């Protein structure tokens, strides 16, 4: 039995002459919170899209949840959750309607959806807003809703692409509480961020720059290796060598 839920080898993505992701290899263990760090434009989102079957790799291979990312990407999709960088639920639907839609697409029964939805809205504290359109919710609530919906179908892994962009630190902390709760249910969490302090919350992190993975390990290991007191410092030491940024 393979303990690795994600196994990636030499993954590369080129857009014309531009290499967004250059030959990355890594694995993620079942149940981990795996952080993907890097500045904007380092290639994090492109990498995550290849893992989720949203983008075709130029070369390289790998498996996610036991399926090949090159040809079995549709099977992967039913076993993962995805929350994109840009809020991408339907603005002109209510929270309830969004939950129903995505629950339905993942094959849940209407009765189960209704049950799950009511506890979910309760937990998020927006039960009273369930009939408002999503566009009227504050960004922090939208993000939590999007996260909840991405794990509605109990996926094996959830991919979060910059989930806390643009909100205040207290909302971010609450969001990370949700991530911990999710991980405690046995769902592997794969999260990208450019907030270095968030990296400390991860079990293991990798730091990307110029489309390449520069280093990978637990936060403590990295700090030791780079003789730094914080991940931020580690990152700065790597980033000074980066060309793009």
């Amino acid at each position, binding site marked *: 039995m393979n303990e690795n839920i994600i196994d990636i080898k030499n993954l590369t993505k080129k857009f014309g002459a531009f290499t967004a992701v250059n030959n990355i290899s890594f694995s993620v263990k079942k149940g981990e919170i795996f952080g993907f760090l890097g500045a904007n434009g380092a290639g994090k989102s492109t990498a995550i899209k290849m893992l*989720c*079957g*949203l*983008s*075709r790799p130029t070369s390289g291979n790998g498996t996610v949840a036991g399926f090949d990312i090159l040809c079995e*990407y*549709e*099977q992967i*999709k*039913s076993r*993962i959750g*995805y929350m*994109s960088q*840009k*809020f*991408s*639920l*339907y*603005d*002109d*639907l209510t929270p309830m*309607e969004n939950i*129903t*839609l*995505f*629950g*339905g*697409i*993942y*094959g849940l029964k209407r009765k189960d959806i209704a049950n799950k939805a009511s506890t979910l809205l309760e937990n998020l504290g927006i039960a009273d807003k369930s009939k408002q*359109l999503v566009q009227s919710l504050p960004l922090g609530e939208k993000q939590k809703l999007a996260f909840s919906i991405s794990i509605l179908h109990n996926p094996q892994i959830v991919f979060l692409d910059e989930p806390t962009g643009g909100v205040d630190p207290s909302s971010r902390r609450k969001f990370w509480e949700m991530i911990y709760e999710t991980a405690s249910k046995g769902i592997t969490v794969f999260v990208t961020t450019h907030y270095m302090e968030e990296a400390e919350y991860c079990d293991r992190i990798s730091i990307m720059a110029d489309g390449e993975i520069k280093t990978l390990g637990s936060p403590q290991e990295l700090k030791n290796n780079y003789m730094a007191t914080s991940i931020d410092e580690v990152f700065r030491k790597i980033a000074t060598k980066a060309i793009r940024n």
Partner: protein
Amino acid sequence: MNTLSFLLEKEFKQFFRDPFMPKMVIVFPVIIMLVIPLVANLDFKDINICIVDNDHSGYSRLLSDKISHSSYFVLKHTPQNYKEAKQLMDEQEVDIIIEIPYGFEKELIRNEIPQIPIVANAVNASKGASGASYLTQIITETTGEFAQNNGIADSPAELLSVHNLYNPTENYRHFMIPALMVMLIIIVCGALPALNIVKEKETGTIEQINATPVSKIMFTFGKLIPFWIMGMFILTIAIFIAKIVYGLSPAGSVWIVYANAFLFTLTISSLGLIISNYSNTMQQAMFIMFFFIMIFILMSGLLTPIESMPEFAQMITRFVPPRYFIEVMRSVYLKGSGIADVYPSFVWLGCFTIVLTAIAILSYRKRS
């Protein structure tokens, strides 16, 4: 199938929540069906005419009389000479000039062959030609009558009778209305799908959908079915207005009309989705769809007859799906044609439906 019901639920909620679209889908067909049949008229009546009478004879009075009593012409002026008449034409006052030369009646009686010039403003070729041909008809009739009265000859025209089928009141509106229904469906069920997927691209929601295991077929049908229902709805409004306002109901089976609309709506909506799939912005999608809508309206025989087009253009019309729909609509509405009469159009349309729907499904790419 279960998934499809969720996707449809979403599409309908979004549609009814839009501030503009539901109104458009109702108001647009109603206005078009009420107004456009009154406009779409190539049956030229009330052509402005002036007569330059140099003969002042019994014949010229008879002819003036016939012309002014004809439903095709309005006798506007009787200028003294051709120069004045031409002046009137340049001022857009008159469309056609007839000049009766001096001594015309005498020549006629002497059984010589007198000449009678007609000058038509042919900027609008068909108007000019119609005017000239109506006038020719009136002159021939008048001359025949005049000849008979004066015992010169008798005409063989009585041997001939013309029998007009299918549109006994010769109402041009009845010819246009079934085609206008097609035009409504082209515009609404073509433009809206073209904008649909590309809108999801612009707002980013498509990415969330692409990350789910939803199948291409389900997704595409989730998009197609609402437009298909919309098409049927618009058609039904149009059929009712045609009946109530214009007293026109299909001479043949209304089910053929619906079956045909079923195929056509899928065809045109699929085309819209294909354009949407290949476009990056709504602006692009709209320009391309606009291009197709124009071709569909102008090259389908809707406004000008296909038989009048040059050979190469007629070839192009074979690949214009509404051409077949319009043929069937007019045949069923006016001639009462049955399946046996129109099945070739059905087969063509069916092929377009299958091909375009298949392309719509395949061109939707979940992975870039």
